[in-house]
């Protein structure tokens, strides 16, 4: 019962991690309401750096390679990525 978390760019640097598995069992949430916001809240408890990084106003969330809002539901095996606005091209 886990998902993969990925971090890129300034988030990856600030948090010192690029990818890890997150066990969903430990995360408190109402039934059928395990969404991106819940994951963010859970990760924010890891400390000030996490709270600051995950709560910047322009944070982008991608669930299974698609940009989503924080109400997107998360399920076992999903890949959830957090990163700043993209600057390709």
């Amino acid at each position, binding site marked *: 019962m886990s998902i993969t978390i*990925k971090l*890129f*760019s*300034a988030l*990856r640097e600030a948090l010192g991690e690029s990818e890890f598995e997150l066990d969903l069992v430990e995360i408190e949430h109402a039934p059928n309401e395990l969404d991106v916001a819940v994951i963010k809240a859970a990760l924010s408890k890891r400390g000030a750096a996490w709270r600051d990084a995950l709560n910047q106003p*322009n944070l982008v969330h*991608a669930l299974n*390679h*698609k*940009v989503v809002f924080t109400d997107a539901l998360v399920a076992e095996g999903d890949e959830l*990525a957090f*990163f*700043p*606005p*993209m*600057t*390709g*091209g």
Partner: protein
Amino acid sequence: MSVCLQAESIDVAAEYARLVGDTPGAAVATFTGYVRDHTDQQVVTELALEHYPEMAQKVLDELGRSAAQRFQLSQWRIVHRYGVLRVSETIVGVGAVADHRGDAMSACEFMMDSLKTDAPFWKREQGPAGEQWVASRDSDNQRRARWQLGETQ
């Protein structure tokens, strides 16, 4: 009709030949972006491009297919580099083949405007004052927004 993410420099002539093939459409438009030696007020000596490979592939595939449908393209190509790039090197190349010139040119513009804000790449500039992540640009978001209306139709 394909995307390539690569560390190597973009071979523009080879890309063009492959794009056009044996039977070109009437109209072929291309755009190639290069590393500039400056950004806004800062001198740039090197650029590092971080990317999210699986998502970048997927986003650019969808972008190409969307452009093909929207502008009736017979062929398209998107090539994006990652890794460390020096000044004057290629970063990105797009190409579109269509029956009508307006479609081919608009498709390139659409692909470039969209990938700038939607494809998971992050630029880190190296200059005399050190390294820094490039901030996203309002002008890029505005250019991207021009295409939104059509998307919802």
